[in-house]
């Protein structure tokens, strides 16, 4: 669609004067919710996302009897954007949650074996809940770094007689890798990173790439209604690897 943002982007310019591959100012803060076992807020420009981790006890899957479980859920709260409505998660919320889940899981960033309580019977369930507070574009990148920061902030509670002692902690959650998700967007023949909501509406296609600290790729998700050439994909993956290093500096293992 021809909009002001589109006219700028196809000429390598941006509404806020950034370079095409610049992130907005990213602010990350951990431990913001007292009642959550781990939490973080990430502000990427005006996009603001809170992630809370709650630890619960559940039964393991039959085929992974000594692994803890990860459950990622995203809530596009109606307060965040005029486009969001209350109700069960829609297509976009489901996709965001699943792309974040895939990045955390496939990068093997959390040691699931350390979340076993009684093999085959009881394991820890990590509920990672993503709440969008303000939507100004690039939700996946912002949600992912917030989720990783929240996991790095998470403490495993003590258990006594099968009850969780809230507020008393056994250990820190074992987070062994620092993956980052970077979404590279394409408008006509230009590539852009971290679009605002206005810019995002001018974007044709997006590719989210999850990159680990060893530059290995752990997840990909193509989005948007247009197609990509093989050369586009190569370039987008290279860009994501380069940009991920920059964001990762913000991700500190402990408070």
């Amino acid at each position: 669609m021809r909009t002001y943002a589109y006219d700028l982007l196809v000429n390598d310019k941006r509404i806020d004067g950034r370079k095409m591959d610049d992130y907005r100012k990213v602010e990350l803060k951990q431990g913001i919710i007292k009642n959550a076992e781990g939490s973080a807020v990430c502000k990427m420009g005006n996009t603001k996302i809170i992630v809370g981790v709650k630890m619960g006890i559940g039964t393991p899957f039959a085929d992974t009897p000594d692994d803890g479980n990860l459950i990622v859920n995203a809530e596009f709260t109606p307060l965040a954007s005029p486009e969001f409505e209350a109700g069960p998660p829609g297509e976009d919320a489901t996709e965001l949650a699943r792309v974040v889940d895939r990045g955390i899981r496939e990068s093997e960033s959390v040691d699931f074996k350390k979340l076993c309580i009684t093999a085959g019977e009881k394991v820890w369930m990590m509920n990672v809940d993503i709440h969008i507070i303000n939507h100004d574009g690039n939700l996946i990148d912002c949600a992912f770094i917030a989720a990783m920061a929240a996991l790095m902030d998470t403490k495993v509670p003590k258990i006594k007689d099968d009850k969780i002692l809230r507020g008393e902690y056994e250990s820190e959650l074992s987070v062994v890798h620092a993956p980052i998700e970077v979404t590279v967007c394409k408008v006509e023949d230009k590539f852009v990173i971290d679009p605002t909501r206005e810019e995002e509406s001018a974007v044709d296609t997006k590719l989210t790439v999850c990159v680990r600290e060893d530059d290995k790729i752990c997840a990909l998700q193509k989005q948007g209604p247009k197609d990509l050439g093989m050369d586009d994909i190569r370039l987008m993956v290279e860009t994501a690897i380069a940009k991920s290093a920059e964001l990762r500096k913000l991700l500190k293992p402990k408070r």
Partner: protein
Amino acid sequence: MAKTGEKLIAGGKRLDGRAFGEMRPIKMRVYAVEKADGSAQVSFGDTEAIVSVYGPRKLYPRFLQESERGILRYRYVMAPFSCTDRISPGSSRRGTEISKVSRLAFEPATFLDDFPTTVVDVFTEILQADGSTRVTGINAASMALAMAGVPMRDLVAACSVGKIDGHLVVDVNGVEDNNSEADVVVAMMPTKGRVTLLQMDGILTKDELFKLLDMAKENCMRIYDLQKATIKESFKQQPDVAAVAEAAEEEAREAASEG
């Protein structure tokens, strides 16, 4: 995720005896659902999908209509009996995501601007699952759309590629998928070389990923040839049906004139 702990590759072959670049036996047919405007059934080994397409047809309720273009709706579901463990029927988070990415895999290929206020519905049902279900669904959906006469830039062909036991392979089956180091799903418009769907999970280096993409591209072309041949073949059979109908009509006319 069932981990077998078993070796997935022995003596340069995969567990089911395939070479790294070899697909499972493929079966394709169109006219799979008589009532549909277009339909197809595709199986890759034990993975089987049936797809029917309805439309372009008027979209109701009217507030959902787009005045300048037709819309595409894609529904991917797995039949409750399709896996070893029963799947509860209806929508799931996984199904919602697959439906979305599959729809986007077809949007660049279809000319829906020519059909304002209409909808094209694609219903994909996985009857039996043994890995690579979404690509089998897409391959069938592509043929069903063509049979429904929906104008397209190209057929969409899809395939899965992955890394198992350190080797790069095509057409990942169920056991391989559950134990893979990585799997990548690609849908393309093969003659245009354009990618319309790309998903990946697991751990890969950049170079491995690019190698897999090249393998996927080559394989999509092979699938495309099969799709095209199947559709062409179906039209060869068509005149017979018409001839039979004509003969019957002729007979009826003769009977009427005699009576």
